[in-house]
């Protein structure tokens, strides 16, 4: 009886690994949540001066944040050929001569 379990348990583990692997690659498992912040909820217009001004200020502040992130992305993109350049350092191998 015990020897049966020695076979059954590894088989179960293998089946689980295959099923999880299949679900992972077929995209049926839930993906990592989108980290992009949700858009600011619009406050309904009430005719209140303070609320109105604050909404307008919020709208422009969000643009500033986007610009900063975009600029960071551009800086990284310009320098993203680093690995291809590093590869030139590997064009010879001392062990070959």
């Amino acid at each position, binding site marked *: 009886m015990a020897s049966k379990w020695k076979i059954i348990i590894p088989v179960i583990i293998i089946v689980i690994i295959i099923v999880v692997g299949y679900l992972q690659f077929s995209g049926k498992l839930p993906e990592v949540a989108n980290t992009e912040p949700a858009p600011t909820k619009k406050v309904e*217009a009430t005719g209140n001066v303070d609320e*109105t001004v604050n909404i307008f200020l919020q709208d422009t502040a969000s643009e500033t944040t986007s610009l900063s992130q975009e*600029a960071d992305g551009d800086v990284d*993109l310009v320098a993203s050929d680093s690995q291809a350049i590093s*590869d*030139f350092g590997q*064009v*010879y191998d001392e062990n070959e*001569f």
Partner: protein
Amino acid sequence: MNSKKITFAALAAFTAINLVLPISVFSQTNPSATKGFCTTISTISSKIDQRIADSTAKLETKRTEISNNIVKRQSEKTARRAEKRTKQAQSRETYYAKLDEKATNETQKQAVATFKSAVENAMNVQWSAIDAAIQVFDSEANNALVQRKSSYDAVISAYRSSISAATEKAESACSSGTEQKTIRATFQQEMKAARDKFQTDRQAIDKVKGSLQTQRATLKAAVNKAMQDFRAAMEKARTELKAAFQQQIQ
């Protein structure tokens, strides 16, 4: 019992193969040590030339990809900003209309019109300042890309020349009958010196990224200044409109 012995033996053999196999597969015998350096120099040279050609092709592909991405990103950013601003402008009309509803006399209606005009003017001034700063940054990003390419091309070219010179020198020494051990040692030294110089020159060029980061800081400062000016204009508009609405309550 026998099956246990067989299993154990199989496991032991498997473990032993795994221990020995990587060593035998990956530790290639130094060809020049067995054949003599001068008989292998042309093969070494061909291999290096091939790797340089491969690396050059890979770098060119990457550069094209980066350049296309930069253009695409700049165009997408402009479109995204325009779309966002149009939506915000439409949204503001709803707020202006509501303020207009609250205005109970001609003076207040005029105050709302003045407020709207002040807000739209402040928005336009802010956007103009931001757009100008973005244009400068985008232009600098394009310049940085061109400058980086030019600088790296020079460094790679010098590196290739040093490698060629070392190889030709070794081949020439082989032809003239110099001792192979000496040729090999000199070749190794010169190749190492070429690589070391390449790495040092690289580090200097990486400062280009630093200069673009300075431009990024300039962009951020310009955007912050535009925001401050906008806030000041908005506070003024707020105070004036509130005063106009306050008059009616009094």
